């Protein structure tokens, strides 16, 4: 049977096409533009304008504490940022913070999703409870964890000392070698429920028939997980991982609430450094340069990923 072909308008020159539009079509088009206008205005005012301003400011001397120095700065701001004593530390911390957070969140999210996908008693209750860290506001979660980790009266130190795991209370957020890792831990605790929910949804769409068929064919639990379940979670996994890479790399509030980037910049990431440039040094030239660089890093990362995935798909 021959399929029905829908009539398609032939390609025409723009002018001819415009002439061919009915009055009704024109009116509809104008109305559509009007509906888009508020969104466009907000985009221009709240996104495009600040972004362009930041890019332009990065080439200007803009220091609220030294207004005598103004005008075109060329690449001076970029040079000052790169030469900053703590730039490399912040760059390294941003990578550590992002990679460990996202990896930890994914691992914990996957584990909990697999557990909650089993037919266990009280499954609905556990599914409801697990979302709690995600719905607690970051500032409250951060302050509560800061209290719990305090050496003087923090419950975590108290438990660790009582259990004999520590000789004396340890200042987790106050020591150079543990501050960043402690905030990473708290961030993982807070964010993994998002992965749990997303991956649980993915797991529920995995065909039971295929899993059972594999089991009948002799595939063990591990083999079924690696070769059947995990590949079917690929799309949802890539989506949440890449969303979280962006969210985590630009995260400011958790680190600021818990350590303000300290002690001695040991937990300072690039967003904290931008804030410090802008709101503590009032050097908006340097802040804009670093913000532009960070934007560049993120765009480069995603362009690389895009080309990598396109090449892979071609194979």
């Amino acid at each position: 049977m021959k399929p029905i072909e829908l009539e398609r308008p032939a390609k025409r020159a723009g002018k001819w096409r415009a002439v061919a539009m009915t009055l009704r079509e024109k009116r509809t088009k104008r109305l559509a533009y009007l509906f888009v206008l508020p969104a466009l205005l907000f985009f221009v005012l709240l996104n495009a304008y600040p972004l362009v301003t930041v890019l332009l400011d990065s080439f200007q001397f803009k220091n609220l504490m030294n207004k005598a120095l103004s005008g075109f700065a060329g690449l001076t701001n970029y040079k000052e940022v790169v030469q900053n004593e703590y730039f490399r530390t912040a760059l390294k911390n941003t990578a550590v913070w992002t990679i460990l957070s996202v990896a930890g969140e994914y691992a914990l999210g996957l584990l909990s999703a697999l557990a909650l996908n089993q037919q266990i008693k009280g499954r609905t209750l556990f599914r409801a409870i697990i979302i709690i860290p995600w719905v607690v506001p970051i500032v409250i979660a951060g302050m509560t964890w800061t209290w719990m980790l305090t050496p003087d009266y923090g419950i975590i130190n108290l438990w660790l000392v009582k259990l004999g795991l520590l000789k004396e209370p340890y200042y987790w957020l106050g020591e150079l070698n543990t501050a960043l890792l402690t905030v990473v831990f708290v961030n993982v605790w807070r964010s993994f429920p998002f992965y749990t929910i997303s991956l649980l949804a993915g797991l529920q769409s995995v065909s039971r028939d295929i899993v059972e068929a594999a089991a009948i064919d002799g595939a063990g639990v591990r083999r079924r997980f690696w070769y059947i379940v995990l590949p079917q979670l690929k799309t949802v996994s890539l989506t949440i991982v890449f969303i979280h890479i962006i969210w985590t790399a630009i995260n400011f509030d958790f680190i600021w609430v818990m350590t303000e980037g300290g002690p001695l910049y040991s937990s300072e990431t690039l967003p904290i450094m931008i804030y410090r440039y802008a709101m503590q040094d009032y050097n908006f030239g340097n802040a804009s340069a670093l913000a532009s660089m960070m934007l560049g890093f993120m765009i480069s990362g995603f362009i690389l990923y895009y080309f990598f995935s396109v090449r892979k798909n071609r194979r």
Partner: protein
Amino acid sequence: MKAKKRLFGLAAVLVLSTALAACGGKNNEPAASPTGNAEPAQEAVTLDFWAALDPSTDEGKTIQAKVKEFDDSHAEINVNLQVITYDVMHDKLVAAINAGDAPDLSWGLSEWFGEFNKMDALQDLTPYLDKWADKSNIYPNVLEALTVEGKTKALPNYLGIRALLYHEDILKAAGITAPPKTWDELLAMAPVIKEKTGKEAFGIAGAGVRSPQELIMYLAQNDVTLADKQADGKYKNTWQDNPDQLAKAAEVFKFYQDLLAAKAIQADAKTWGWEEEDQNFVLAQYAMVVNGPWIEGRSSENPDGMKDVKVAAPVYKNKPATFMEIAPLYVYKSENPDQAWEFASYLLGAEYQKAVNPGKNPRSDLVNDSGWGKDFMALASQGVVFPAVSLGGITKAMEDSLARAMLKNDKPEDVAKWLSQAINDSLSKTGELSGS
């Protein structure tokens, strides 16, 4: 059809104008009267006043009551009191000043004085002060510290002269009859106090706004200054040009490291802010601290912890010195300087100061006879203050230098060199470095 077009056009203009209006700030023109009458002289003026008071304390409640009293008694002046903590006050003020939206008056720290003066945000109060009958009752050296090139640019809100506060009972329990006078005496007492009482001898602020205030005091006690005014009227840190100064500055960082090594301070005191320092002292968790007279206000909340607290001069190395915090009352340039002065002079008046700052007021006619007021004011002559330069970068560098000494355990000489360079870098960035 035309009507529809007009309607859409109107809607678009409305959206655009609403969005643009939201971008606007407070302009510098006189506020319009509620009746639309353009005669500001006849209208009640509203003064924005930002204060870092704590509304939960007796002092905070008294301040609020006194401000209301002023408001009620002045039909032509309304005071809009906003409580903003010191932690965020500075950022908000800098942003507001740059946006041309500064309050009329605010509390502040002395560290901000140079910055605000450089930003040309402060009202010249000299003409008002010269006519003020109470001027002679304000300590002259305090007013002098708030005067730049002959112009008084701020008023003293209260004085935070630092003294050594000690829990007499803890010292007695350790068999110590008198507090230490020098750094060495303090370090020698520390193990005894720890052994006999299980408590640390001393408290410091290793981070936050108070840590530079303590550091400048210890530097002064070893005869070292942060930055000196040079012949060109600008400032410079000269430690690296003067080996003796550098060695003395290094001794200060060595003192911090010794406090930690001798367990004279709690291990986590290296990252304490002022909250932990005050709270742990008030709860008698350690024996001694160099702190301000405001601690007296904590007696009502913690009578047991505070009942044995006594006041003495701070420990020193070469020369007795303490930090004299002149907490300024900033009066900003505005359209209402007369009304702002009227309110400012009320806040500096005898009645307000007696009610709010009995033991820490800047008036020589109101010295409190109680131990606290008298003992603190006796130290005023050895008080040191920050140089009148933009201090944002400098105080941050001072805080970092303490972290380098106590967290990274860098050599004291290296820390001193680093801080010297960081101070000059900061002065250079703000255009205040001598020779730049």
